């Protein structure tokens, strides 16, 4: 091989390095060689300086030509609007399909949810025997007759709401009513419903699912666990949250 051919091959190796085309092994061999061979290093440094300065000069020159020519302002042509319209329609269709599938799946989950039996305070006792309910206390000494009557009315009302939810009637309205009762029960321990929070929270979640809304259902169940960490329906709630997520 002549000296000239060797120089050409050497240049090609330097160019390969500068273009980042070497394998890591080749690159480390090359760098080691650079530290030992001053001729190779001088040539490589010169080539890098040449390229770096050409890039700088060339770019400046190109930019001045481009600036002088000036770029045409972007105009939204009819072709663009056709394209944008079809993209938007496709996107809306995809979102619609996704929401339809998501909604149906959530309702299915709500139906499965409705089948789950929880230890209910509301349905544990018959309305004809409200005295037995409650609170494991001796009602003759702690609860007045009119309070008991009011409790009975309210419990029946709650049962009516839950029965409506099971039949998927007036879901939004019933959700609002239950949420109001739930908040009252949390805020006020003297509230008629304070011992029925498990039933209320569970049925709010159920109603949301039957309405096709998964996030608020998860949210109310999580809120219930946070507010009443020792609730007796904790295992069922945790299982449902996991499934819903």
């Amino acid at each position, binding site marked *: 091989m002549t000296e*000239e051919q060797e*120089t*050409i091959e050497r*240049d090609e190796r330097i160019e390969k*390095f*500068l*273009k*980042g*085309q070497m394998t890591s092994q080749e690159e480390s061999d090359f760098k080691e060689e*650079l530290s030992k061979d*001053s001729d190779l*290093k*001088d*040539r*490589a*440094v*010169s*080539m*890098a*300086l*040449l*390229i*770096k*300065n*050409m*890039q*700088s*000069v*060339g*770019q400046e*020159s*190109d*930019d*001045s*030509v*481009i*600036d*002088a*020519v*000036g*770029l*045409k302002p*972007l105009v939204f042509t009819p072709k663009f609007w056709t394209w944008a319209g079809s993209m938007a329609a496709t996107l809306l269709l995809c979102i619609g399909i996704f929401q339809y599938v998501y909604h149906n799946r959530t309702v299915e989950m709500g139906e499965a949810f409705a089948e789950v039996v929880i230890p209910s305070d509301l349905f544990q006792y018959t309305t004809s025997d409200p005295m037995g309910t409650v609170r494991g206390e001796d009602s003759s000494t702690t609860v007045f007759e009119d309070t008991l009557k009011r409790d009975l009315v309210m419990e029946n009302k709650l049962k009516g709401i839950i029965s409506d939810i099971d039949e998927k009637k007036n879901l939004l309205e019933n959700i609002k009513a239950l949420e109001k009762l739930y908040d009252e029960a949390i805020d006020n321990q003297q509230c008629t419903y304070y011992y029925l929070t498990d039933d209320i929270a569970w049925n709010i979640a159920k109603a949301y699912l039957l309405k096709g809304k998964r996030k608020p259902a998860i949210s109310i169940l999580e809120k219930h666990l946070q507010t009443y960490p020792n609730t007796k329906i904790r295992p069922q709630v945790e299982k449902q949250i996991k499934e819903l997520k």
Partner: protein
Amino acid sequence: MPRPDEFEVFIKKEEEKVKAFLRNKFPHVPTEDVEDVIQESATALFDNIRNRKYKKEDCSLSTYYMSICHRQMLKHLRKQGSNPFVPVEESLIDIYNYKTDNIDFMVHNASSPDILDKLDLKEMVKNLPEPCKTILWGFYWMNLKMKALADMCGLKGEDSAKTTKSRCMTKFKDAILQIIEDNR
């Protein structure tokens, strides 16, 4: 729309290179046709810059202009139909660009960085003597493949282009070393 002076200066500057490239690559095409193709290409380049079709990240303006000329010539030959052989369109440029990190690594590796900092290397690369100017700019800035470089410089083939480029590189390296020596 009138074309600005900067654009005309650029076209004038590129004219000789482009003409040489087309004449060497398509020797059978009459000179008038080459002139026509160059004029059409300049118009196309102007429109493409205006309409944002040219992306400076892809290649230099010179490379882009030469590619347009090449494509226009092939189109012209196909349209004419009188030539039995129209070459297949091939890329004139190397797809790999130089990596800034690797260039910087090498520059920082220089033995006398303090002296290099003081030198006006931009002026030096602007004023390289011919034919090294065309060869080195064609290879390292335009990123042309050896065959295209040979056509542009009127060299006999790739080997001849490689040898000439290597000699030019040696001259440039020697010039830099000499300047460093003089500045010590």
